[in-house]
């Protein structure tokens, strides 16, 4: 799969403050790229750089393989974005705002507005003035605007912020649909990590402007999977026992000698008893199942270190 967004050593400084420090991420076509980080971690700054709202102090940014400033402007027509808050004219109706957006983007066909309204479920509100819209409706309108030019990439900065629980679920389902059915690559940031967990296929963890890690959902799943960490006096002998007595082959010996047993089929006591019965000393016994939130906190600590 080809990279639609690529950054190398991307740095953004505002005076003495470094908002983004040497960030290199790669977003491939078809990814749902989840950007995770605290407030001030640099998520919005990265999005602003991607969308051309701010200029990098250092580093390279490529969109669809192009990196020259004029080419980047051209390529941005292939991207739909909501950065911070969706932008619109409050005195105009939903429909007129979308029509204005359609004309500005040079999208042919007046029926496109009706189609996009239908897609985001705002047809009933097409005559509402934008200043009268609820937060959820504003987010949908922003999404409709982002979708107007049939973009190949959607960049969404906290699209579920301000939405009620059912709105969050609807937004997630909708984004999943766009990704699966239309093949739209989505770059999304969110503070709702549990929400992001159900959506993203790739994660990037930002902390204090630095990229701590970019990892695929599959790898993350393995790392966060249910497991038992057991510290024994003879790890090599214990792994033999694991395979022979319990017929368990999914394990890993960590550098500190801890044996990590993935997807355990028996209770913690059984694994402990296996060691004790063979005269092996058990110095550590821990059952772990990390959520994305826990993993993120661990990543954050790593970033801070």
């Amino acid at each position: 799969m080809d990279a639609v967004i690529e950054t190398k050593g991307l740095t953004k400084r505002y005076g003495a403050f470094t908002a983004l420090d040497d960030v290199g991420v790669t977003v491939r076509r078809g990814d749902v790229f989840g950007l995770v980080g605290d407030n001030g971690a640099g998520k919005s700054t990265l999005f602003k750089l991607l969308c051309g709202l701010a200029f990098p102090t250092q580093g390279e940014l490529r969109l669809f393989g192009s990196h020259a400033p004029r080419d980047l402007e051209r390529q941005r027509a292939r991207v739909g974005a909501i950065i911070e808050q969706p932008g619109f004219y409050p005195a105009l109706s939903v429909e007129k705002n979308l029509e204005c957006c359609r004309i500005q983007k040079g999208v042919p066909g007046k029926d496109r507005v009706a189609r996009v309204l239908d897609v985001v479920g705002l047809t009933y509100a097409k005559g509402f003035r934008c200043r009268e819209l609820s937060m959820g409706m504003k987010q949908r309108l922003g999404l409709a605007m982002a979708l107007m030019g049939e973009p190949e990439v959607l960049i969404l900065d906290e699209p579920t912020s301000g939405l009620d629980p059912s709105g969050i679920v609807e937004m997630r389902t909708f984004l999943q649909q766009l990704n699966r059915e239309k093949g739209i690559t989505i770059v999304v940031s969110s503070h709702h990590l549990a929400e992001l967990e159900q959506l993203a296929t790739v994660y990037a963890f930002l902390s204090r402007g630095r990229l701590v890690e970019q990892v695929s959902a599959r790898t993350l799943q393995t790392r966060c999977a249910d497991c038992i960490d057991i510290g024994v006096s003879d790890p090599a002998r214990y792994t033999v026992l694991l395979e022979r007595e319990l017929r368990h082959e999914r394990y890993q010996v960590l550098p500190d000698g801890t044996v990590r047993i993935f997807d355990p089929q028996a209770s913690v006591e059984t694994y402990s008893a296996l060691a004790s019965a063979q005269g092996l000393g058990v110095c550590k016994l821990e059952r772990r199942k990390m959520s994305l939130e826990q993993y993120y906190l661990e990543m954050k600590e790593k970033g801070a270190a």
Partner: protein
Amino acid sequence: MLNYMKGEFYRIARGTEAYLLVVALVVVVLAANIVLYVMTFVDPTFPYATVHFSLSNLLGMFTMLFALAGVLVALLYADDRKNGTCKNAIAHGCSRTSLFVGKCIVSVAVGLASMAVVLVVYIGSAALLLEGPVAEPVGVLLAAIAAGLPSIVAAVVLAVALDGYFAKTTAAIVAWIVVVFVVPQVLALVGLRIDPVAVLASWLPTNIFGNEVNMAFLGGDFPWDKPFGLARCLIAGFSGLALFAVAGVWRARKVEL
């Protein structure tokens, strides 16, 4: 850029701002002419109910057109940043230069269309309600507008540039008033003592269309009546236009949202 401009024309045509400005100005000019007309019933010897007097009022307040240029831009674009619409345009691939130039062209076009409507009402109501010849004062007014048009356009471009430069609209308005009105006035006053400053001040549109026009009412020619004066009006206007356009594009390319 063309698409951006089309979108802006669509938005302005469906918004209320431009209509409000035109209606307000039409009401003002109509009221002015109606007051002059009604005065003839109150005082049969009232000498000012003439087309000449009515249209001279605009000449006497010509710098108000500069102010209206600023008001127009403020009405059209003051909330562009706050609403996030400026961000939208850039994020969708519109270059900053196109955005700036597009805004200038749209503002000038809307301004000219509004001015045409107001002038038709102004001149038409004066011709219908008031006494005296029409062609001669209309000719003087149109000559003044032709001479002042580059300066009015420069005022529009400056307003768009400052609106892009300052995050706060109030700051942009203050800066615009300082550049268009305060600096020329200060230079004119300093010029009363220092000759080179007086020369510089005499090339600034606000002084040409303000002080010099008012002096012409006391006796003498309007600045644009003589070839050199007309050239001065046009050079001053086009120089300002070029200066503000270059500064505006330069700044627009650097501004971060």
